[in-house]
């Protein structure tokens, strides 16, 4: 079965209507039909909860609505895990050298490095994200790799 790694920025779009939400709706339908299995980092849900909580702290959304929305998201995720549509992947000890490398040589935020390495290690068919940061990152080393395509920047 094909697998799709869903990064937090993409997963958030399954629960908030904006550009890309239609893609997430389609992907969720494929997961529900058992055509694909969704993968997500164990950190993706806390990231989404933090995003909603921050907006609650800023007064954009009420405490009641924020808590109810977060409970609803947790329930939806739990159901998908129970149905084996979605698998939550932990950050393994063996990921750490790669995570450190992403931070040191590619200037990743910690959470981006965790997401990227978890995705890389899960070997999904597709990596879905909506964060321009992933495609915008380029270090001197990557520039060098572009000039010498035989080399891989992430090993």
């Amino acid at each position, binding site marked *: 079965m094909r697998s799709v790694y869903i990064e*937090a*920025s993409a997963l*958030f*779009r*399954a*629960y*908030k*209507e*904006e*550009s890309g*939400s239609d893609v997430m709706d389609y992907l*969720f339908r494929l997961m529900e039909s058992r055509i694909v299995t969704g993968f997500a980092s164990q950190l993706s849900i806390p*990231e989404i909860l*933090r*995003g*909603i909580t*921050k*907006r609650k702290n800023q007064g*954009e*959304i*009420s405490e009641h*609505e924020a808590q*109810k*929305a977060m*409970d*609803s*998201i*947790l*329930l*939806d995720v*739990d*159901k998908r*895990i*129970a*149905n*084996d549509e979605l698998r939550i992947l932990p950050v393994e000890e063996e990921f750490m050298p790669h995570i450190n490398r992403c931070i040191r040589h590619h200037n990743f*935020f*910690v*959470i*981006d490095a965790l997401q990227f390495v978890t995705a890389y290690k899960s070997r999904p068919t597709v990596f879905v994200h*909506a*964060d*321009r*940061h992933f495609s915008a990152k380029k270090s001197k080393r990557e520039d060098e790799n572009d000039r010498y395509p035989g080399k891989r920047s992430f090993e």
Partner: protein
Amino acid sequence: MTISVNINPNLVNDLNALIDGKIYRTRDEAVEDGIRFLIALKGKLYTRTEVKEVLSKYISVSSDELLREIKEEEEL
């Protein structure tokens, strides 16, 4: 695993069926999920479509920008 609560047996069956495939490390974690399931089964939580409507209504910034703010905030 199972959770015993004093409610309609049909709801308990649905609840146990829903959480059967999940492994919990602590009782609190299981109870918290159980309560959430029960509330949902009584129709008090949002569907995914309703969550999208609510969050889009109140939160204007895009998801990636929102997540970016959090990352940058935690770097400060």
